């Protein structure tokens, strides 16, 4: 008895602590787009109807179970065959009720939601392109104030937190280095694609979720109506990094958005200016780029995950020659592999800029246990030339 009591108190305590969590909801999280609001209404209505049906049927069953039992001496009644007219009546009535529930009460709102969800173009003022890659999102602004801005959004949670070596932060697994920034109140048309496997861009508070299919463009839209930071995750199994592909959207006012866009455009312009860099500068930046993009497969130590992801430490590619006697980069060299990828190794030329690629190659050749004898340093200008 004492044990039961303790169990009861424990259970109550647990549920209190659950409801006390600000970020956990028992239903869809607070909707912030017209689509999410509509979805929530449809969902609540469905749930209410099905709950009523369930409780009603369960009540009838329980009544029967309690009353019509052998231990109470209840004698079974023979079901009399009804007349055809009665049978037809009792078939048609429930059928009509179900038809009404399925196709009118539920069906009509569902129809309107679908039409609204698929209408990506009416009154949309901005177009962005989202590309899913293993295991990061790439965002590109195709028009408006932010035209030309392009960046990659990576998980920002540290490895130590994932392996329980450090304390987990508030937004564990739901934080990125570069969030997508969107203006509040504008209908944004989203073009969705992927570079390798299927991904699914999902922010629960937006009510939108769309599969990114490599080689195809899919469309969806969002119109965030409240400023804030919204978090979601990739929702289509996309390999080992599937759980580490968060979506973070920062919704800001139109003015803030314009400011952000200006700043980002300037930064991007500055970064694309090719400068001669020292080995130390390349190494410092290269380490950052490596740990953000490469370490997920090749490991922080460069040991790799054979056989899918070979070790970089001591590898022919990371220590062999890059440039031929004509000064051009060779096929299957380190630079070729990073720019164009091969097999499961993705191509990075669209994702990283010249400086980043030069830095990461230099880092890989001079760290991770490697000391390359030839072509130890790659300059951004060489990467730029290789792209042409």
């Amino acid at each position, binding site marked *: 008895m004492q044990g039961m009591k303790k169990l009861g108190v424990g259970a109550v305590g*647990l549920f209190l*602590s*659950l409801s006390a*969590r600000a970020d*956990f909801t*028992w239903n869809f999280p607070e909707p912030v787009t017209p689509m999410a609001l509509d*979805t929530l209404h*449809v*969902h609540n209505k*469905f*749930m209410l109807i*099905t709950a009523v049906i*369930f409780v009603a049927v369960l009540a*009838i*069953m329980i009544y*029967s*179970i309690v009353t*019509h*039992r*052998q231990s109470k001496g*209840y004698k*079974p*009644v023979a*079901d009399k065959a009804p007349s055809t007219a009665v049978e037809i009546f009792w*078939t048609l009535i*429930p059928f009509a009720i*179900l038809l009404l529930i*399925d*196709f009118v009460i539920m*069906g009509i709102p569902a129809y309107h*939601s*679908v*039409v609204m969800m*698929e209408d990506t173009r009416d009154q949309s003022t901005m177009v962005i392109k989202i590309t899913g890659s293993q295991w990061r999102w790439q965002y590109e602004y195709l028009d408006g104030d932010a035209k030309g801005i392009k960046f990659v959004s990576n998980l920002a949670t540290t490895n130590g937190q994932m392996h*329980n070596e450090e304390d*987990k932060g508030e*937004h*564990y*697994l*739901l934080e990125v280095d570069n969030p997508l920034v969107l203006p509040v109140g504008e209908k944004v048309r989203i073009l969705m694609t992927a570079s*390798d496997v*299927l991904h699914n861009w999902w922010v629960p508070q937006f*009510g939108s*979720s769309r*599969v990114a*299919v*490599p*080689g195809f463009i*899919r469309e969806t839209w969002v119109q965030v109506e409240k400023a804030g930071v919204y978090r*979601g*995750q*990739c*929702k*289509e*199994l996309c*390999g*080992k990094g599937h*759980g*580490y592909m968060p979506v973070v959207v920062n919704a800001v006012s139109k003015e803030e958005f314009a400011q952000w866009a200006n700043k980002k455009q300037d930064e991007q312009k500055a970064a694309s200016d090719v400068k001669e860099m020292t080995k130390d500068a390349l190494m410092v930046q290269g380490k950052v780029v490596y740990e953000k993009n490469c370490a997920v497969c090749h490991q922080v130590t460069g040991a790799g995950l054979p*056989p899918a992801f070979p070790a970089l430490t001591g590898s022919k590619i990371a220590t062999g020659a890059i440039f031929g006697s004509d000064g051009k980069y060779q096929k299957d060299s380190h630079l070729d592999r990073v720019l164009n990828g091969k097999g499961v190794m993705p191509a990075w030329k669209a994702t990283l800029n010249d400086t980043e690629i030069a830095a990461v190659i230099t880092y890989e050749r001079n760290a991770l246990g490697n000391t390359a004898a030839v072509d130890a340093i790659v300059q951004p200008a060489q990467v730029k030339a290789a792209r042409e």
Partner: protein
Amino acid sequence: MSTTTVAHHDEHHDHPTGIMRWLTTTNHKDIGTMYLTFSLVMFLVGGSMILGIRAELFKPGLQLMNPEFFNQLIGVHALIMIFAALMPAATGFANWMLPLQIGAPDMALPRLNNWGFWILPPSAILLTLPFTLALFGVGDGALATGWTFYPPLSVQGGIGVDFAIFAVHLLGISSVLGSINIIVTIYNMRAPGMTLMKMPMFAWGWLITAFLLIATIPVLAGAVTMLLTDRHFGTHFFDAAGGGDPIMFQHLFWFFGHPEVYILLLPVWGFIPQILQTFSRKPMYGYKAQVYSLWAIGALAVVVWAHHFFTAGMPVPALLYFMYSTMAISLPLAVLFYCWIRTMWKGSMSFETPMLFTVGWIILFGIGGLTGLVLADVAADAQYHNSYFVVAHFHYTLFAGGIMGIMAGVYYWLPKMTGHMYNEKLGKLHFWLTAISFNVTFIPQFFVGLAGMPRRIPDYALQFAEFNMISTVGAFVLGLSQLLFVYIIISCVKGGQKATDRVWEGAQGLEWTLSSPPPYHSFTEQPVVK
């Protein structure tokens, strides 16, 4: 003809004994026993895999395994549970009970039956071998794509994908062979006087299942073969770069995959009314209505496949069609529920273990069905899709609606099969442990799903921690309770109180006219149904 004379015939027939009896048998009861045993073993294998996963998900962070291994476990767990646990269990019952229920001496094609079974163990080995090979450094483990094999991920995958493709081919062949046998048996071997509309409901459930299998398994075989050639022979069926389309695979896969849900459930819908009428001591209500509903569900099952990938992008008319056709399944299903409950209504019910499982089954499967109805809504599905809400929904249909139904059948027929009564007290304990821990496991998953936790992730945000912890505790109790089930079955096979021929007071059907256990060759003289 009395049942005792039938029993005596047994002694006049020679058949191999010991291990050879099982290796070479073409006897429907022996093959049925092997199917059921195989299914139980694989159920435990698939179950232990998921306990590994639930242990990893007990708290946030990576504790026990890396994400690759996690992905392998989820895919193989599903393939094993569907193809190696649920389907063989239903086939096992078909082998055991169909000839007895329709008054046939055996299945129509006994050698085919033998082959149908012996394909299974090699395919189970193919499914699990990659794990073992990886331990010795060969390959990179089993398929890590989920049971759905979606390309391009599966094109990228290692040798485990090829193993799984061949395993699915073999399992598919086995199912088709079994289906052919069942169709031929039902059409040709019924006792005189047993018209189709007098057949036991279980025979109807299986007949429709068999047609569904024959219609859809070849499509799955085709899809995975195309995948195999994409992987190794340079075709581009599912590769946009070569003119293919990854989403085409999803259409082909779910053209099989959706009917598969009903393939798993229709045999159960067959024997559930039989158990209900037995323990309500009153004939089942609406036999004809149930038969027509089963047909309607079988037909609708093959026209709603695309509701599994609403978010993959489809024209609006296609979305609307798949939404409304999916909702339409609720109509015949509601008829079935009505008939089941009406069978109980004003009966004289008693609650032995099979009845407990059946009543629990109706309630829990009801939750699975109703949550399926809301999933049909395209707009809301954008939210549910690939979240834990879906995981909870399909475990209510496939564990509660499938496995708990199978367990009802096991307890119902175990005395008939073994000739001994099982331990009723332990049986009831098994039911309550299973039903309660099942809900403790899966109710929290509805809530984390709604709140936004995607499925198939090895680690999760902190807001989902408490519910995942509860779910894991539930899963371990659920898993361990099944050891009790194994113990009950083994001790029932070994001995116990002798079962009477009819076993249950209200039992109806030809199988109860034979001795318990039935003679090696059942019905040496054909019964006549009036």
